[in-house]
């Protein structure tokens, strides 16, 4: 159905030109949360970006504008607001398509997040095509979402979960990967960038090997989309998942990219409105992709907000983002290693902006609590990656994770707070 151009929601081109050279000061001005103070007058050093990113003002404004001016359900109404909402929602799908360099909007399914996207693939694809004895290959550094969703389908289908180990730097044992990959392997589901260790996996090699063995490749991109330009076609991933809230977008919205022929071959996962073609008690037929997988009213505002976040990232430019983050990671690593007793978990050759560490035998919860009092936000715990923690014989770490709006000042305050915590606890 053609939808009229509405200047209010269509004021900007879908893909906006870059803003010129990367400038961290200008970027920081776009994130209102960075001006927060905590525990009295302590300025915030937000280093919990692997958990969720902060939101630029334009994303917050987009959500506000949608609810203020265009609030309506999608794909249902003939009235103006419904058409505006539908237009904005579907245009956001187009932005995701461009971000991932997918071939078609039909390959972009909106979900609640990366976790739901993985569960959708496991339940719908895995539930349909896995047979007893088939193997699913994951790695030791997976997020629980990429372990448990397969364990659930393993029980239902009789398929077997195999695990590729990593070495002590947090790099995937590629020799073991190739050894474990065999004719029984039907699905290879591997994380692109580890949330707990920062390792960047050789995803091109993994996908190519999976295909050569006759398996499909699922890539968990929850930690990679915020930091690097993704090209699902160059990567040749069969499925690729990510969460909106980690890429400057709202919580509760995520994406499943799937190759068209695979999505078309899969049965719906959840039933409800929007996903049907014709409903009758003697049989229901289903809508086409991607709507077949989007039962019920979707997170409309979330998708539109994610579209605004993608515009912002595109405007900022991934080249500048990657360069800035690499410099910042090198600086933060150097400063952290100056702290006596600090040990970094995850020292792979190719690493993204994640510093998982402990200091001597001090408990990460104690370190995190004291750093919080100094305005430094880190994550402590197992990072939903207990097998990765177990590899190192630990149950938890403290994790500082970077985004392109962090600067050296954030790192300096982090190190000062950490030194203070160590002094207090020793």
């Amino acid at each position, binding site marked *: 159905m053609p939808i009229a151009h509405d200047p209010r929601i269509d004021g900007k081109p879908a893909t906006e030109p870059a803003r010129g050279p990367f400038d961290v000061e200008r970027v920081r001005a776009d994130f209102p949360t960075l001006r927060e103070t905590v525990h009295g007058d302590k300025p915030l050093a937000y280093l919990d970006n692997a958990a969720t990113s902060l939101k630029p003002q334009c994303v917050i404004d987009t959500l506000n504008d949608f609810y203020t001016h265009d609030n309506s359900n999608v794909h249902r109404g003939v009235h103006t607001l419904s058409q505006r909402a539908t237009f904005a929602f579907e245009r956001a799908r187009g932005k995701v398509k461009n971000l991932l360099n997918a071939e078609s909007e039909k390959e972009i399914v909106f979900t609640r997040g990366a976790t739901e996207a993985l569960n959708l693939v496991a339940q719908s694809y895995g539930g349909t095509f896995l047979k007893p004895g088939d193997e699913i290959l994951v790695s030791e550094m997976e997020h629980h979402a990429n372990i448990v969703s397969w364990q659930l389908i393993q029980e239902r289908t009789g398929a077997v979960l195999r695990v590729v180990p990593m070495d002590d730097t947090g790099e995937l044992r590629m020799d073991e990967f190739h050894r474990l990959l065999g004719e029984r392997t039907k699905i290879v589901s591997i994380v692109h960038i580890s949330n707990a260790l920062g390792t960047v996996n050789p995803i091109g090699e993994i996908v190519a090997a999976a295909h050569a063995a006759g398996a499909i490749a699922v890539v968990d991109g929850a930690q990679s989309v915020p930091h690097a330009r993704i090209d699902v076609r160059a990567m040749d991933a069969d499925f690729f998942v990510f969460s909106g809230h980690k890429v400057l977008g709202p919580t509760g919205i995520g994406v499943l990219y799937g190759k068209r022929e695979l999505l078309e071959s899969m049965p719906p996962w959840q039933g409800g409105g929007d996903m049907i073609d014709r409903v009758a008690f003697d049989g229901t037929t289903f809508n086409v992709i991607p709507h077949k997988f989007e039962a019920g009213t979707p997170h409309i505002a979330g998708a539109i907000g994610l579209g605004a976040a993608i515009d912002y990232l595109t405007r900022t430019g991934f080249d500048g983002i990657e360069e800035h983050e690499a410099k910042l990671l090198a600086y933060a690593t150097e400063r952290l290693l100056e702290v006596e007793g600090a040990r970094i978990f995850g020292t792979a050759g190719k690493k993204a902006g994640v510093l998982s560490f402990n200091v001597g035998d*001090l*408990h990460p*919860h*104690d370190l995190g*609590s004291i750093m919080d009092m100094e305005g430094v936000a880190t994550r402590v715990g197992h990072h939903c990656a207990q097998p990765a923690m177990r590899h190192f014989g630990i149950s938890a770490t403290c994790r500082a994770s970077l985004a392109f709006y962090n600067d050296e000042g954030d790192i300096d305050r982090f190190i000062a707070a950490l030194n203070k915590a160590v002094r*207090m*606890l020793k």
Partner: protein
Amino acid sequence: MTQTIAEAQKEIVEEFAFFDDWEQRFEHLIDLGKSHLDIPDEYKTEAYRVRGCQSTVWLHPELKDGRVVFQATSDAMIVRGLIALLLKVYSGRTPEEIASTPPKFVDELGLNEHLTQGRANGLASMIEQIKLYAVAFGQLEKSHFGNGKEQGT
């Protein structure tokens, strides 16, 4: 036990009132944690683990002469400090005292607002577990006496 449960709470609040800022309060909490006695390894089991804590907490209750004696510890130092405070208030009290005494000192020290949400939840879990044990021991005592009476008549 010479100090009453109310006196113990009051003393903690007065003790912390000496400190001007969070840093000194945290330092004091850490000191309490460092000097808090560890518990026997046989109590560091799944059965005595308090759920809902981000760090590992073990809490062992024992009924001695009508009073509940708690032994507890954690692998995190700040939590050990909190445990030391909780035990000062609640350990060695009668089940009835424990069940009927809210942890006023927690609010008065502003502990909840100065702890992360996770840790505040953990503190709430510990208090809940302490109270659950007290209620259980209280019921055990009642049913024990009840049975005794029946047998006697």
